[in-house]
């Protein structure tokens, strides 16, 4: 049975709506940490929002959530992966929206804002999965600048931003800026296997 990390839920109870949370995870626990963050936000705090899917396709993420019994039909997914794969955008799911490439950083921000403007929920989040996926395609300075804009844009609109990050694979400039801009840190970045 899939077990969620309850300590993440506890940490999230202390987070304000206009916060920006850096969630550090490792390679092996990335999905568990992501799910452990999503579930309390949706179920305990009754939030909705946008999931920016840059690591894997949105369809794959939705199926992974459904496999462990998490209904994400009310979450809007922005898929940065599938447009780069011919035939990847043929899904009929209405909560998947495509951006051509992780290079189109401003488009990702504008699409998120658009989706948030169409939601009827009062409390919303934006989850960016992940800084590492964006770092593959974007220059360090541009990514640092983008995260600065991204975080402040959502803080100003009282939208909780959650930024997933595998720190030992994040460029140092980006990581230091992320540490500076984010208001909260959930650190599950070091997984020790005994």
């Amino acid at each position: 049975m899939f077990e969620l990390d309850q300590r993440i839920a506890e940490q999230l109870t202390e987070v304000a709506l206009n916060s920006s949370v850096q969630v550090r995870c490792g390679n092996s626990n990335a999905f568990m940490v992501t799910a452990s963050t999503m579930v309390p936000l949706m179920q305990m705090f009754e939030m909705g929002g946008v999931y920016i899917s840059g690591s894997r396709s949105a369809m794959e993420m939705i199926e992974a959530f459904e496999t462990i019994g998490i209904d994400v039909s009310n979450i809007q997914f922005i898929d940065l992966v599938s447009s780069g794969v011919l035939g990847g955008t043929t899904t009929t799911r209405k909560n998947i929206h495509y951006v051509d490439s992780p290079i189109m950083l401003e488009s990702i921000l504008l699409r998120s804002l658009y989706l948030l403007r169409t939601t009827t929920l009062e409390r919303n989040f934006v989850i960016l999965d992940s800084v590492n996926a964006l770092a593959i395609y974007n220059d360090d300075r541009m990514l640092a600048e983008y995260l600065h804009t991204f975080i402040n844009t959502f803080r100003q609109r009282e939208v909780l931003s959650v930024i997933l990050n595998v720190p030992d694979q994040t460029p140092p400039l980006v990581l230091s800026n992320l540490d500076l801009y984010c208001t909260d840190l959930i650190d599950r970045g070091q997984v020790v296997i005994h």
Partner: protein
Amino acid sequence: MQPAAVYTRDRCVTGIHGLDEILRGGIPYGSTVLASGTCGSGKTTLAMEFLVRGAIAGEACAHFTATEPSVKLLENIRQFEFFDMNMVDTGLINVFDMDVLYSWLGLEKSSFDLDDVHALIKAIVDIVNTIGVTRLVIDSVTTLCYKIKSEQLIRDFLFTLGKKLSTLGCTTILISEITSATENAHWSSFGVEEAIADGIVVMGDVERMGHLLRFLQVVKMRGTSHSRAKHAIELTPIGVMLTPMLKWGAQGDTQSRWGA
């Protein structure tokens, strides 16, 4: 001690998300604004939203189209969630085919002389006056000016039209098609439009690693301070949305182009 009050002109609030902020409140009333860009940059969409937002505020609006039939144009603006066909039925949005106007005026010819230009100005001004239009779009002024062979006549046409529309309190967007890909390009096809217009809004694409990102930049707007930064835009069902373009993302500006 309070700072001295600064005189500000009344604004035509465009209602376009972000644009009014860039213009510090909107376009000064009665201005003639050149919206320049190449195909696919979002000029017509921006101009149509300008009209629909005006109609929502109860203003009478007119669109003169020379690039696509009015029926097709109206079909395209149905994508806007805030558009209602009643706006057309109740006369708040009025779309005129330039071909029909030419035919009505007996101007079905390849080039216009001075009398033709004056007849055209009078017809447009009469329509604006009769309906009480406060927002007008001509799409495109480039197509129209192709029929005016002399640069001096183009200048006279635009200057006289702009002056008369301004007197009537009508804020006008003239759509201009540009093709140049260089940073030394003009913002208009004939070079005279940009000097006469009160404002210039440039729209185009920045190429970033093989992907085209739409941008909008207000390079000139008389009567108001404004941002001159490049803004990335998205065309969405709730209208045009803007955000400042990443500074490091504009590094390839020497390769950027104003259109495809």
